[in-house]
């Protein structure tokens, strides 16, 4: 339906347009969204646990986790509230390297990301491995601020950004695809921005 009187914000096509998924607009800032207050997690209190169901596989403290191989990832990110930001520069530990350090292969096809504030979000395991995702520790070379999920957040840049859980403290392998916090509250179970999977029921 054409909206009366609404004129196009479209400019001549550029290389940038091909990087913006449907329904998104380009944002220069870095908006902050979260369901509750910002947790202030001190690195001395921080830990990260890899779990299979309720059973811990391995736990790292901040020093141990920072001793794992650091990888740089510069990616476009896409928030379900319709902003896209280009070339966000992160450094962190690939999920592959976490698994290698724990000496395990992924035991199940589904993973739940767990956060200090109780937030959860589900991601198929294959979307986290093969270099696709990391636990980010630095943004633009500096520690990630609490607003943006520091000390550590998940980074799964090819899915809508609510999947990149802030204040991460663990990854839990699950037998089934278990909906997380927003997935239980009307958001899509998978969240591919290129297929515009924003809300429950989107194809």
């Amino acid at each position, binding site marked *: *339906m*054409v*909206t*009366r*009187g*609404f*004129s*196009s*914000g*479209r400019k001549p096509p550029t290389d940038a347009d091909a990087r913006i998924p449907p*329904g998104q*607009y380009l*944002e220069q*800032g870095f*908006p*902050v*969204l*979260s*369901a*509750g*207050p*910002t*947790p202030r997690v001190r690195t001395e209190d921080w830990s990260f646990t890899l779990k299979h169901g309720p059973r811990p596989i391995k736990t790292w403290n901040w020093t141990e986790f920072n001793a794992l191989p650091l990888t740089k990832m510069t990616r476009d990110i896409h928030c379900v*509230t*319709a*902003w896209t930001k280009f070339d966000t520069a992160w450094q962190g530990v690939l999920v592959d390297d976490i698994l290698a350090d724990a000496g395990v292969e992924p035991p199940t096809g589904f993973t739940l990301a767990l956060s200090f*504030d*109780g937030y959860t979000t589900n991601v198929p395991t294959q979307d986290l491995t093969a270099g696709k995702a990391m636990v980010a520790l630095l943004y633009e070379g500096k520690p990630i601020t609490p*607003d943006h999920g520091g000390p550590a957040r998940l980074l799964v840049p090819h899915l809508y950004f609510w999947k990149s859980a802030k204040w991460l403290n663990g990854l839990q392998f699950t037998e089934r695809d278990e909906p997380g*916090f*927003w997935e*239980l*509250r*009307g958001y899509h*179970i998978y969240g591919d921005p290129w297929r515009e999977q924003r*809300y429950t*029921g*989107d194809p």
Partner: protein
Amino acid sequence: MSDGPAAQSPWQTMTISRIEKRTPRVTSFFLEPSRPFAYRAGQHVDVRLTAPDGYQARRSYSIASAPEAGETIELAIERLDDGEVSPFFHDIAAVGDEVELRGPLGGHFVWSDSDGGPLLLVGGGSGVVPLMAMIRLRAARRSAVPVALVFSARVWDEVIFRDELIDFHDRRDGFDLVLALTREAARRPADYSRRIDAAMMEQSMLRLPAPPRFAFVCGSNAFVSAAAQALIDAGVPAGLIRTERYGV
């Protein structure tokens, strides 16, 4: 996975039936759905505008009306000069125009009288909009749940829904309005003329008969960060605080 009715577009056309200026920068648009639209207080909608060349812009807006208000839904939209959707509403949209909406959306920043209270609401600027839906729901259902709203605005004339809020307050039926004006002197005896802080939160909670069961905070990111921290410093457990941040 497919459940529920297929093939129906999640978007529906709504017709603007009334436009009411609320403050110099905020105007309410009343919309008539074309098919049944059930929602909860605190939820939002996505609005989509389409240009003749197919270009689309979409933004999220909170619903200001209570579900009790009937079919019509009210969006109170602040004009952002560098935006592309809010200037359309403020400068072009007229009664009779149709726009496309999707929703209702959001299942976390919601409240109903059956959820109980007391309720502490903290809004900054247009962040009051989803809180207004909760306050109106309470009034429409003649609920006895105690509610305090701490509403921060720059000046008296930018207090959205001011007359209606003062009217609710004056009923003395368990709803208390506290205004915090950041760029003007307070006009009501118990109001403040400063930014929200922990002391203000502590004093405002004394207006409730018991500590809040839920706190809802909505506004700009900077406002929500400061207000949520003020609540925590005033002793409200973080797990009771629900936030909604207006993106940029």
